[in-house]
């Protein structure tokens, strides 16, 4: 019985939040890694692309809610998601036409692209704040919980509750679907293959008649879709605030680099590694150990490896260790 309590406490405070956060990071890191693999630069505007996508989705959600369209127990935002994706694709293609294409034609160095994306980031930053404001926006509706902590306690008679939010469930399921679809697209379709070819060897791809502008266009469309989905899931699960998306950029880049920049599989693994390391290393194991160990061994202290102050230090420590010993990342991406 006690072991059960320990397991439930661990699931509730470590496994479930870690899975949801990891999925969100993985989706974000996939976008970053695709841009890096195919367009060959680190896209700092990615966090704010996510914010823009989430913003469009929120606006459409509000429109739906005001005319009474809902999605039953699921959040209305899921219905609005396709519109958000379309809006973001529009913005991404517009930035590409007006900004990035110019530098592509100049054959600018990657570092110049990075700086350009920094400028784009501030522009998008401004647009989002201008349209929806800097404050917190809530747009989640429908049933909030799959299972509530209190209900779980009553059902099982355990001391510890287990809560699963609807948004956490949706996040994980959507992430699985999106990742499966992306891999099918990259590996099985003609366009996907041409994207991979362009990523592996640009000159050879051009020689074999692949149209580079098309590859770039499809990349932006996929990245915009990924960014919107990640942004909306994150906003649903936590709350939407433009500033947090900007902050999210660091863990997303850490995930992509740890996994290996340019490698989609690595981005997913990296997302979960960063998310779980942040949660487990700073977790106070007192409760779990008190349940799991016999009384004589039960600890008095908090049994916390590092205080939560060092949460971010954890991801960066991992990042540095990986870069020192395996500069291409865990899954053989491109050297940074």
């Amino acid at each position, binding site marked *: 019985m006690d072991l059960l309590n320990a397991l439930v406490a661990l699931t509730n405070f470590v496994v479930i939040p870690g899975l949801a956060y990891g999925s969100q990071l993985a989706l974000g890191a996939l976008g970053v890694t695709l841009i890096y693999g195919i367009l060959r630069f680190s896209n700092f505007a990615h966090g704010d692309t996510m914010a823009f996508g989430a913003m469009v989705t929120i606006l459409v959600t509000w429109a739906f809610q005001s005319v009474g369209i809902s999605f039953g127990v699921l959040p209305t935002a899921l219905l609005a998601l396709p519109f958000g994706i379309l809006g973001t694709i529009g913005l991404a293609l517009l930035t590409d036409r007006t900004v990035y294409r110019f530098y592509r034609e100049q054959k600018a160095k990657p570092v110049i692209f990075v700086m350009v994306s920094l400028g784009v980031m501030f522009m998008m930053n401004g647009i989002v704040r201008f349209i929806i404001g800097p404050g917190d926006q809530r747009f989640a509706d429908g049933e909030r*919980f799959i299972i509530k902590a209190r209900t779980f306690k009553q059902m099982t008679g355990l001391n510890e509750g287990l809560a699963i939010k609807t948004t956490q469930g949706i996040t994980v399921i959507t992430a699985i679907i999106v990742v499966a679809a992306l891999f099918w697209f990259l590996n099985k379709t003609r366009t996907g293959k041409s994207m991979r070819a362009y990523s592996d060897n640009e000159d050879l791809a051009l020689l074999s008649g692949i149209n580079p502008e098309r590859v770039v266009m499809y990349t932006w469309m996929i990245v915009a879709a990924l960014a919107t989905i990640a942004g909306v899931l994150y906003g649903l699960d936590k709350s939407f605030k433009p500033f947090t998306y900007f902050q999210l950029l660091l863990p997303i880049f850490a995930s992509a680099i740890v996994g290996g920049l340019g490698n989609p599989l690595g981005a997913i693994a990296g997302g979960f590694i960063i998310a779980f390391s*942040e949660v487990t290393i700073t*977790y106070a194991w007192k409760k779990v150990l008190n349940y799991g160990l016999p009384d004589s061994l039960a600890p008095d202290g908090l049994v916390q490896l590092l205080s939560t102050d060092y949460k971010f230090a954890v991801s960066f420590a991992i990042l540095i260790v990986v870069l020192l010993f395996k500069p291409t990342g865990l899954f053989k991406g491109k050297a940074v």
Partner: protein
Amino acid sequence: MKKLLMATAAAALTAGTAYAGGHAKEVKLGILFGFTGPIESLTPAMASGAELAMEEVTKSGKLLDSATVSSVRADNGCVDNGLAVANAEKIISEGVNGIVGGDCSGVTGAVLQNVAIPNGMVMISPSASSPGLSTMEDNGLFFRTTPSDARQGQIMAEVLNERGVSSIALTYTNNDYGKGLADSIQSAFEAAGGEVTIVAAHEDGKGDYSAEVGALASAGGDVLVVAGYLDQGGLGIIQGSLDSGAFDLFGLPDGMIGDSLPQNVGPDLDGSFGQIAGSDSEGSRVFAEMATAADFDGTSAYAPESYDAAALFLLAMQAANSTKPADYMGKILDVANGPGEPINPGELGKALEILAAGGEIDYQGATGVELIGPGESAGSYREVEVKGGKIETVKFR
């Protein structure tokens, strides 16, 4: 349209009197608040409060040689020392005669050390409550219309004890304000016989607080005290704790009190309690009415304190018959404390008259101002509880 007409008429009138006054002066007060950042939902009402006092004085036409008072707003980001210092220097170069601000403790200390002291500029903060500011060397240039958090810690411990809470988990936002407040709550609560199971910092501006909530839940406690900001990490921590069933009740110090918190969290917050600087004085009611007439919420956190901060500047200038910081800084304590005629909000014109005639005033203002020690409010607090999605006053202490 009517409002616009009236405003134009008023502007024309003031312009007329200024012209008639011949050598009429303009007094500029800087308002250095975090219009962006962790308390951006509070600062608009705070700035409106300060500007309400300036407008009242301008309309009365009795300050110095019927001087007009204008405000110069600048952003300090609440937690962005670089921005705060740069903007403080900017408004000083624009010729402000005093600075209402800063709002958050960290930037206030930074501006005081790096800008106010070198330039000999007086600052009156309506909301910086870190105990560290009491002992900071300020050359007599720094005042605040809010009490130090050393006092708030004692009040929080009293509230917890009276509600029969024996153990708390404590989390604070990782800056001067949060750390100072958490220390004072911890020491006061432990001195009163309570147990603090964990003291953990959280960073603002993150979306994900599952690690923090996990650690806090593991340590346990009857109540989770969140010494943070309601628009930031504080909200995230409360949301995360409720969602995972870690805590049901929360202790809310001043940075967490605001209408947006129950709105964002929902009915689960009912029963949580806390305290915020505030008094039961007649002035607070008068101020709330004046604010409603001026189209902002006068009960919003620190809006009354902001009104008082701006009013103290103008009254001290009148008492010193000068707009130079070096001349009027010595008069601030005089006008704030007795003896003299008590002055409520809306009576600034009367106060200016008394001072011009050489009389004495005891400025009460919107918060029952009484400055002690190095020029900070003695501190009365309003104990509040969340009931039915609203923050309601339980009592004053």
